[in-house]
């Protein structure tokens, strides 16, 4: 299945929807999207292939195949999620399945920055808090939650959990400046200036 709701755009401050719990530490990007699905020149079809091998192993019992989780938009994971390969196919596959935010104990660096460049916040909390949150979600999977970036928390009608978002990325999401390309290009003059001052690009004449 894949989501019809539109991909992230502009300012992102609130994400509302069902939560989906995917337990386990060190879940790597090879598992999120196995390498054979990287044989594509566009990301379009990745939504259906997310966790392909883990899902076929569990024959319908994988969280991404459970009916109650259909349509979920917030993925709650544990420690060091997204480690391994730099493939943006991983967050792309999650996004195309319908995920719009992640919450976990920690995220691997490249995965985290890939998510940011797609406008997908990755919020963190302590091991204890994440496990609590996961338990609460599992108790009623149909519960609708609201992830509020400004308040750095996630709330249902009955519960509130306080989360953390890194300052820089948070600011980028709240102001809609997470899509870096236009900001980077707007520095054209400074880019040129830096380029001219770099020794290995100017015959190693060290001027400064």
């Amino acid at each position: 299945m894949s989501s019809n709701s539109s991909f992230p755009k502009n300012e992102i401050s609130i994400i509302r929807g069902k939560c989906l719990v995917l337990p386990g530490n060190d879940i790597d990007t090879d598992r999120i999207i196995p390498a054979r699905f990287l044989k594509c020149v566009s990301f379009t079809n990745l939504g259906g292939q997310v966790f392909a091998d883990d899902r076929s192993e569990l024959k319908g019992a994988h969280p991404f195949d459970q009916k109650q989780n259909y349509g979920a938009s917030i993925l709650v994971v544990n420690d060091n999620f997204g480690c391994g390969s730099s493939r943006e196919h991983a967050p792309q596959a999650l996004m195309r399945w319908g995920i719009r935010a992640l919450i976990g104990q920690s995220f691997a660096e490249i995965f985290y920055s890939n998510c940011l460049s797609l406008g997908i916040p990755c919020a963190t909390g302590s091991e204890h808090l994440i496990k609590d949150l996961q338990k609460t979600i599992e108790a009623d999977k149909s519960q609708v939650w609201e992830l509020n970036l400004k308040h750095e928390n996630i709330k249902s009608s009955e519960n509130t959990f306080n989360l953390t978002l890194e300052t820089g990325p948070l600011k980028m999401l709240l102001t809609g400046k997470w899509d870096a390309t236009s900001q980077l290009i707007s520095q054209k003059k400074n880019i040129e200036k830096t380029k001219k001052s770099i020794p290995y690009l100017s015959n190693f004449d060290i001027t400064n």
Partner: protein
Amino acid sequence: MSKGTLYDKVWDIHRVADLPGGSAQLFIGLHLIHEVTSPQAFAALEEKNLPVICPERTVATVDHIVPTISQKRPFNDPLAEEMLSTLETNCAKHKIKLFGIGSGSQGIVHVIAPELGLTQPGMTIACGDSHTSTHGAFGAIAFGIGTSQVRDVLASQSLAMNKLKVRRIWFDGQLKSGVYAKDLILHVIRSLGVKGGVGYAYEFAGPAIKKLSMEERMTICNMAIEGGARCGYINPDQTTYNYIQGLPHAPNFEDWTKAINWWQTLASDTSAIFDDEVTFDASQIAPTVTWGITPAQGIGINECIPTSESLETNERLLAEEAFSYMDLKPGKLISGIPVDVCFIGSCTNGRLSDLRAAAAVAQGRHVANGIKAFVVPGSERVARAAEKEGIDRIFLEAGFEWREPGCSMCLAMNPDKLIGRQISASSSNRNFKGRQGSAHGRTLLMSPAMVAAAAIEGKVTDVRKMLGSIK
């Protein structure tokens, strides 16, 4: 906060501006691309109607999907062929240099850039591949990026980055005979964990590092990412300069002295401040083999696979998952575990010195019955140099297959795959579930010499016994 480290110096030289979100804009001195993570980036440029601003600072090759038996075009796999021809079209259109099959310089992106002299000290290097950390061996700041960031580099030759902390990992002593750079880095990851390096750049230093060749240094920096560190580096020294001198893209003859003078200023100051420091004794490291499903689940060749009780509580869950996936018995010696497939290659260990080390073990011996063993050189240059030395013949006579260059069974996007529950001894860098092409395939990571030893014996074996370094 770190101060006076190579990382700080290179960062400052490349800083273009501070961005509103709080991150910095960093100029990228060398951008490497390949067929898997670039097509969507070029498509995004087109969509936004943006040009590639410094095509001369981007270099392309093809490695991930190429077959290693016959590289005749068109490839048998139409999807692989489409990816390669898309890269060719994009490079031609944007005037980007592509080292294609048969060019004499094609190969795994992290093998070719160093051997062509493209990788140099003090550069910032980015590539849509996590093992870009390899280039840090030259004292470059090199890191993997995602496809959206590939697009950003093409469009602006820069990236929005947050500065990392720096951890110095110091190695006293020297590696013993039969123990290799691969063992050293597997030992680090085993000790600090797969996420120990998140938020850090790793500086590898100390007498044991100083003595390593450039190829060995590359093996170490290559796997920094497996320890969670987005980049790892080694301060440039005479070994670095000697390696670069005379390579096709090395600085011009007239610039050479100036280049060295500048490179010498880059190394971390003796008074540098690090955010964290860790020390190891290299002489205590044994040949190391992974038994589980992350590169941190590794042990010395004379150790037993841990039992759940012997592990910290937070490691147990993952260990249980590994026991059941790998179908290996806790408490059992790692040495003696039978293997089905032996793979020598990858950007970690597919260079000439790796092939030499493995060939030294294979010479005059033969692959055990029923074992599939194959060698995939990291690049066309490595392949031709090895053939010139007769290394291909040593392997062939010993019953190994000798293939054409590419990533091959490191990630199995080409026809080289494990089948079913096969277990492989592999010189690559990842033992994740399903990594080598079968959803149930199993991987034991080790040095290339150890892979050769496993191929000969048909089981995990202490290569030092075969080399006569121990009885």
